């Protein structure tokens, strides 16, 4: 009977010694990749320059992707009063006893950059602006989330009022607690982005950012600056406190 062409017979002609060698090579290859994987754990590999560069490049790429994904008309979900998280957590890069105490009478909001009317604002002037309320979810970059009620003037209204260049790329914030951050113009103009003066219908307490914060329900919590001292509009990337350390800049939700 004629032998059908079988791959097994073909393999059988390979000397066993050679097969052993091939298998050993594979085993070595495998151990090498295991070693490489072991090196990945811990923080060491993250600190290698080329790795750092790649990760930053990917983070910048993710900024662009998030810019495309961001739908300026899509509203963040809103919740009933009963869903509010009590107590609403305090969160900052410092402890609660280091929260800045701001003198309301002396406070002035400074404006800078591509804004037509840069005259500073007092608190009574800001409080006189038309205000709205929202109950939305604050999502922290750490993973936890909490629902709160914020009231203030829609940020778009304020930017239009002071003659900000709405075609500029960035809006930057400098804060009284030395925090700083910046956001894209599309998010600044989102209908739910709010210059906030009140929390739970009370004047914003110090721990939540007195005299004002920017509430952005379409961004992670650290993109919501508190104790704002200056707002500026620019086309030059302003970065941010956490962003300059490696947190993703766009951080949209």
């Amino acid at each position, binding site marked *: 009977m004629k032998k059908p062409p079988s791959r097994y017979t073909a393999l059988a002609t390979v000397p066993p010694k050679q097969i052993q060698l091939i298998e050993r090579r594979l085993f070595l290859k495998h151990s090498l990749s295991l070693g490489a994987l072991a090196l990945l*754990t811990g*923080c060491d590999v993250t600190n290698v320059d080329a790795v750092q560069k790649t*990760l930053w490049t990917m*983070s910048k790429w993710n900024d662009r992707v998030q810019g495309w994904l961001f739908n300026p008309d899509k509203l963040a979900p809103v919740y009933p009063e009963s869903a509010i998280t009590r107590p609403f957590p305090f969160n900052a890069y410092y402890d609660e006893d280091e929260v800045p105490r701001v003198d309301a009478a002396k406070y002035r909001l400074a404006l800078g950059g591509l804004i037509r009317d840069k005259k500073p604002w007092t608190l009574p002037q800001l409080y006189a602006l038309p205000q709205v309320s929202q109950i939305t979810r604050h999502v922290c970059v*750490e993973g936890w989330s909490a629902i709160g009620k914020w009231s203030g003037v829609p940020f778009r209204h304020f930017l239009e009022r002071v003659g900000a260049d709405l075609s500029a790329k960035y809006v930057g914030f400098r804060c009284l607690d030395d925090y700083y951050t910046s956001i894209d113009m599309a998010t600044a103009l989102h209908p739910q982005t709010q210059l906030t003066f009140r929390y739970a219908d009370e004047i914003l307490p110090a721990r939540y950012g007195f005299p004002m914060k920017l509430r952005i329900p379409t961004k992670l919590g650290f993109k919501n600056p508190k104790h704002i001292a200056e707002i500026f509009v620019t086309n030059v990337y302003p970065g941010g406190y956490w962003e300059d350390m490696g947190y993703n800049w766009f951080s949209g939700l």
Partner: protein
Amino acid sequence: MEPDVDHPPEPPRSVIHPLTVRIGHWINAFAILIMILSGWRIYDASPLFNFEFPHGLTLGGWLAGALQWHFAAMWLLVINGVVYVLYGIFSGHYRRSFFPLTPRTLAQEFGNVLRGRLSHRLGTYNAIQKLAYVVVILLGVVLVLSGLSIWKPVQFQGLAALLGGYEGARLVHFFAMAGVVGFIVVHLALVILVPRTLPPMFTGRAPRDAALPEGES
């Protein structure tokens, strides 16, 4: 030993793992390792349960580093995963390797396992293996969808709502990860128990004496 040419032990397929599957497998192994280890560090920043992953086991050094790894490797995982799943569906690879998969064969195979009789012919999967591979692929899909819901709970709020909202999606993401980790543990344990399954994952070819009939191996 001369093979019985009239009754070849297996369909004489020399390549038991197609090249696409092998490349996809190793890219996926690399990507999923990064996703799991960086994901553990992200979990530790705000644990869902009363435990943390030992930081020495995690990737990224701190939260920002872990997030950078997670959101870089997600592209590798998703692009590779999409290629692999499309290939699996359209090449017939899934149909050939994972189906038919019936409750009867599953029960039978489970009985075999209980009696300590495992069949592991290279290139052919028993019912439990088939189920495990199908489930882990579905878990991968769940991981991507719940991950999207956590990353973009406003832009993808419809999807997030299906998974119980932002907080629900975090739980789904965690348990799907746990399922995949469980799969990997069993998967690696079996590779250690039956080491000859490993070389074909590089070469695609079954070693000469590997393809034994059921019961003999």
